[in-house]
């Protein structure tokens, strides 16, 4: 369903039913410094509309639309963060909820961890190639286990499904208290046609995919809230269908193996100050792309609308043709309203 159709549907629902509408939004200005010098950009400005259509005794549909209003982030990478537009149709207590529209693929940490608006990100761009995808699915909770199933186009946000390929993503994630730690363990599987970039072409990701290949992924993720410490871990293994870039010696029956990982730890020294470190990598037959991040987040007391994030990040890309390293320092203000 397109965002336009969903918004029009919502407008009609607002006009005829007992519907409540909430508006919100966020701005993400940032300063970046690297070997080339410094820059200031408004990375993104977004508007959010949440509408709720309720009957006499229960919610019938909840819809959310996230619109990118402005910002320097453009091209394919903009679609990682802006463009959610979906409706949730709960079937009843203890029953699944149907989700339809353009939403986050529920693979690994992406299912629960909203990385949009964060400087330090999980390596979904490299391991999957997209974050938002139009589709249809179900989600719910059985006991203490969260489950999600999502069938989507695999072409990315705001795209027609002209290749007729689909992606199936499934995740189950039990959550439990282990002593003073709140633990979530997730097991995810994904298969389907998804955008592909060789490691050498990653710097051109903003231009959008030039190739779609069959990808198979299996992921294990872990979120631990242990007092002021939050740890997030993700491991992804899989195979990509062979392309012209694939080293022949690594391919098996037309596919090549890949793997990725992410580890993050953040610790609240006090309610308003939180240092964090993260490390991620993605390895293919060509080589590897890795990022080391160290950040400091500041949450002004009693002003939940503001957040200041700072991060130092060092990227390395190692392939047969490139051995590249770069670094940057970013300070980003998140203003939510």
């Amino acid at each position, binding site marked *: 369903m397109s965002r336009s159709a969903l918004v029009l549907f919502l*407008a009609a629902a607002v006009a005829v039913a007992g519907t409540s509408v909430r508006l919100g939004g966020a701005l993400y200005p940032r300063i970046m410094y690297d070997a080339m010098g410094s820059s200031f950009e408004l990375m993104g400005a977004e508007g959010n509309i949440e509408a709720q259509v309720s009957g006499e005794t229960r919610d019938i549909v909840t819809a959310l639309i996230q619109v990118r209003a402005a910002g320097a982030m453009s091209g394919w990478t903009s679609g990682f963060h802006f463009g959610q537009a979906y409706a949730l149709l709960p079937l009843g207590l203890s029953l699944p909820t149907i989700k339809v529209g353009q939403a986050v693929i529920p693979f690994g940490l992406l299912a629960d961890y909203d990385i949009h608006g964060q400087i330090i990100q999980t390596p979904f761009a490299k391991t999957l190639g997209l974050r938002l995808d139009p589709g249809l699915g179900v989600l719910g909770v059985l006991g203490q286990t969260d489950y999600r199933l999502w069938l989507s186009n695999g072409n990315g946000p705001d795209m027609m499904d002209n290749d007729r390929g689909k992606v199936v993503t499934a995740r189950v994630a039990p959550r439990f208290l282990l002593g003073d730690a709140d633990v979530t363990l997730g097991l995810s599987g994904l*298969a389907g046609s998804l955008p592909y970039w060789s490691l050498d072409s990653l710097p051109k990701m903003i231009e959008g995919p030039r190739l779609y290949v069959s990808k198979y992924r299996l992921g294990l993720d872990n979120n631990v809230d242990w007092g002021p410490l939050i740890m997030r871990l993700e491991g992804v293994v899989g195979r990509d269908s062979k392309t012209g870039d694939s080293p022949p010696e690594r391919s098996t029956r037309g596919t090549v193996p890949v793997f990725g990982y992410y580890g993050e730890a953040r610790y609240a020294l006090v309610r308003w100050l939180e240092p964090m470190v993260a490390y991620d990598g993605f390895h293919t037959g060509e080589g590897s792309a890795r990022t080391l991040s160290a950040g400091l987040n500041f949450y002004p007391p009693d002003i939940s609308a503001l957040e200041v994030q700072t991060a130092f990040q060092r990227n390395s890309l190692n392939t047969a043709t490139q051995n590249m390293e770069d670094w940057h320092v970013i300070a980003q203000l998140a203003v939510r*309203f």
Partner: protein
Amino acid sequence: MSLRNLLFGSNAKTGTVPRVERFEGLSLIFALLLVLSLAGTAAASLCVWRQPDADISGIFGSGSYKTVFADITDAQKQKVEERLGFPLDADETQFKYFPVFKGKQRVGTAMSHAGKGQFGAIEVVVAVVAGDSGPVIKEVRIQRDREKAKAALRSKDFLGQFKGKGLTDTFMVGEDIETAVKGAEKASQAVATAARKLLVVYDGLGRP
């Protein structure tokens, strides 16, 4: 169509570039304007109710719920702040309530709030029912927190103290609430304050 074609498409294996098109944004802008013109107040920062199924089953046995948004007027805000003894946050202009039903009968109301813990937000869910002299708490649960005494804060011994408390109770640790564990006084008070705040605001908004 084969399962393989359904999943991967006919050209995924060959690596050809699919033709893709972007939707035009004009109709989206018109639709947005239409929704904006019909919309009410701007949204405040509201705490998500993360596990409604588990909470309703655990607290009320069974039932259904719906979402109700309630804006707070200046007059209501002033009265609520007088009763609370501290100001609401600047972005608390709207509150969200979840009336719970069994059949068509309303049996209670659930609400959620992010209290201010020692190391971050403590997300609490409070379920209230009608009492003889106003709403009383049926149960308090913690959704998420970053406190060191996580297990003690979520224990029945601590959270069970809130059952039956109403608008005239003080919700003060050391008075009518015992700390979850020694050293967790601030976190315990944050939970108690959040519960009282939800109760007072709920009453101040006319028990929506």
